[in-house]
C-alpha cells in the first residue's frame, strides 16, 4: 500500500504545523526546567545560573518523605495493576463472550475517560463505608484500580495481534494451558507488559486527585505536597523537583523506546 507520505514529502504548511505544535508542547516544559537553575528567588526574573534550589530540595524533609511515599505507592500499585491488567486483557481477548462480559468491558474502559474527581470520591466513600482508615494502602488500592484499566488496554492491543496458533501448537506438543501461556504467549507480549507497568507507574506518580481523596495522615504523596505548595504561588524549589521528575520519566520513556527500536532493527 502506498501512503501519502511515500508519494510526496511534507509541504511547508505541514512542516510549520508540526513545528508549531511541538513548540507549543515543549516550550512551557523547557522554561520550567531553565528556571529551576535560576539563582533568583523570583521565579520569572533571571538572576544567573545556580543549583541552590536542588540543594534546598535535599534538605526539605517533608518533600523527601513525600517522594518516598509516592515511590512505594507507585511500585506496589503498578505491579498489582499490571498483573490484573494482563489477566483482564487475556479475558477480553481470549474468553470470547461470557456471562457479564459486556459489564466487564464497560468497567475496564470507563475509568479511562471518567473524571478523576468522581473516581476519587467514589473510592473514598467505599473506604469510609468499610470503616477502613485512610492512608498508604487506600491510596495504593485506588491507584491500582485506575491504572489497571490503562494496563489492560496496552496489553490487549498487543495480545489481539498475537498469533494464537503458537499457543495451540505448544499445547499440542504437550504443554498445559498455563505452561503454554507462560512459555509462549507471555514472552511474546513482554514488551507490552513492560510498557503497561511503566504507564501504570507514571500515572500513579502523577496522580493528585485520587490520592487527595483516598489518602490520610502520614501518606502525603509528592503531587499532594506539590499542589499545596503551588497553591501558595510559584517557587523555584517546585521547579527543581519538577525538573528531576521530568528527567527521570523522560529518561525511562526514551530508553524504553530506543530499546524497542533496536530490537526491531536487529
Amino acid at each position, binding site marked *: *500500500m502506498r*501512503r*501519502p*507520505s*511515500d508519494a*510526496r*514529502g*511534507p509541504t511547508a*504548511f*505541514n*512542516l510549520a*504545523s*508540526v513545528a508549531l*505544535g511541538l513548540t507549543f*508542547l515543549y516550550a*512551557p*516544559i523547557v522554561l*520550567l526546567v531553565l528556571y529551576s537553575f535560576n539563582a533568583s528567588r523570583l*521565579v*520569572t*526574573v533571571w538572576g544567573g545560573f545556580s543549583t541552590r534550589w536542588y540543594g534546598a530540595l535535599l534538605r526539605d524533609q517533608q518533600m523527601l518523605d513525600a517522594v518516598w511515599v509516592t515511590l512505594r505507592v507507585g511500585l506496589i500499585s503498578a505491579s498489582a495493576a499490571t498483573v*490484573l491488567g494482563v489477566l*483482564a486483557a*487475556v*479475558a*477480553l481477548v*481470549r474468553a470470547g463472550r461470557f456471562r457479564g462480559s459486556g459489564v466487564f*468491558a464497560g468497567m*475496564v*474502559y*470507563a475509568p*479511562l*475517560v471518567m*473524571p478523576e*474527581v468522581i473516581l476519587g*470520591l*467514589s*473510592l473514598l*466513600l*467505599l473506604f469510609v463505608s468499610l470503616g477502613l482508615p485512610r492512608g498508604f494502602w487506600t491510596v495504593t488500592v485506588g491507584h491500582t*484500580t485506575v491504572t*489497571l484499566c490503562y494496563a489492560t*488496554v496496552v496489553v*490487549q*492491543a498487543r495480545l*489481539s495481534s498475537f498469533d494464537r496458533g503458537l499457543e495451540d501448537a505448544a*499445547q499440542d506438543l504437550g504443554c498445559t*494451558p*498455563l505452561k503454554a501461556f507462560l512459555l509462549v504467549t507471555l514472552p511474546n507480549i513482554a514488551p507490552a507488559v513492560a510498557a503497561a507497568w511503566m504507564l501504570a507507574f507514571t500515572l500513579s506518580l*502523577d496522580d*493528585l486527585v485520587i490520592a487527595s481523596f483516598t489518602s490520610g495522615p502520614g501518606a502525603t504523596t509528592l503531587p499532594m505536597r*506539590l*499542589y499545596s505548595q*503551588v497553591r501558595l504561588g*510559584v517557587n523555584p524549589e517546585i521547579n527543581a523537583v*519538577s525538573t528531576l*521528575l*521530568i528527567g527521570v*520519566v523522560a529518561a525511562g*520513556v526514551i530508553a524504553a523506546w530506543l530499546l524497542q527500536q533496536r530490537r526491531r532493527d536487529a
Partner: protein
Amino acid sequence: MTGGRGRRLAIALPYLWLLVFFALPFALVAKLSLSHTVLAMPPYAPRLDPSRGLAGVGEFLHGLSFTTYARLGSDRLYVAAYLSSLRFAAIATAILLVIGYPIAYGMSRFGPRAREALVMAVILPFWTSFLIRIYAWIAILKPAGLLNQALDLVHLAPLDLLDTNTAVIIGMVYAYLPFMVLPLYAVLEKQDASLIEAARDLGCTATQAFWRVTFPLSLPGVGAGCLLCFIPMVGEFVIPDLLGGSRTLMLGRTIWTEFFADRDWPAASAVAIVLLATLAIPIALFQRQQAKVLS
C-alpha cells in the same frame, strides 16, 4: 489459557477487583446523593444499621430522599457551574480539533522513521506530570510572568491572563493536545494515498480532495479524539483550580469544594451523579469505539 480453571481465574480476579473498587463505590455515591448532611463523622444520614435486620433496612430506605437534587437544581450557582463546565469543555474541544488536525496531518506526511520519532515526541509530554505542566503555565501567564516580559520586549501591552477563563482554556488545550493528535494521526497515517490520486485524476483540486476524501475518511479519528478530550475535561479539577479565577465555575471544582471545604458529602455525591449522567452517552460511545478498535 483455554483451560477451564485458568480461564475462570483470569476473568474472576480483575472482574472481582473492578466490581468491589469501581462498581460498588458508584452505588455508594448514588446512595449518598439521596442522603442528607449531619454533624457527625461520617457527615451524612441515614446510615444502614445491619444489626437491626429488616426494620433497619426499611428505616434506612425511608430516610432517603431527592432533597439534595432539588436543592442543587434551585441553586443558581450549581446550574451555572454545570453549564459552564459543558461550555469550557466544548470550546476547548473545538480549539483542539482545529489546531490538532493540521499537526496530525502534517505528521502523517513524514517518512516512516521520522513519523515514529514524531509520535514519540507527542506522547512524551503526556508522560510528564500533569500537575507540573499546568504549574509551568502559571509562571508564563502571571502578571509579571514570561509572556508579559516577552510582550514588553516587543512593546506590546501586557495581558492579564492568569486567574481568568482564557487561562483555563489555554491550560486545557495544552494538557489535552496529545489526546487529540494521536487518534487523528492513527487514522490519517493509514489512509491510502491512491484515493487522493484518484480524486485528483478525476479533476479535484488539492483542497477539494482533502474535504471530499481525506476528511470524511478521518471522521472516526475525529470522533475518538473529541470524546477522549471532551469527557474528562467536563470534570476537570486541576486546571480550573490552578489557572482559573475564583469566579471560574466548573463541576469538578464544585465536587472538590463541597467535599473538602464545606464537608457536604451528599451535595458532592449528587453533583457527581449529575456529571456522570451527563457523560453517560459520550462514555458509552467511547466504550463502543474502544471495544471495536481493540478486538
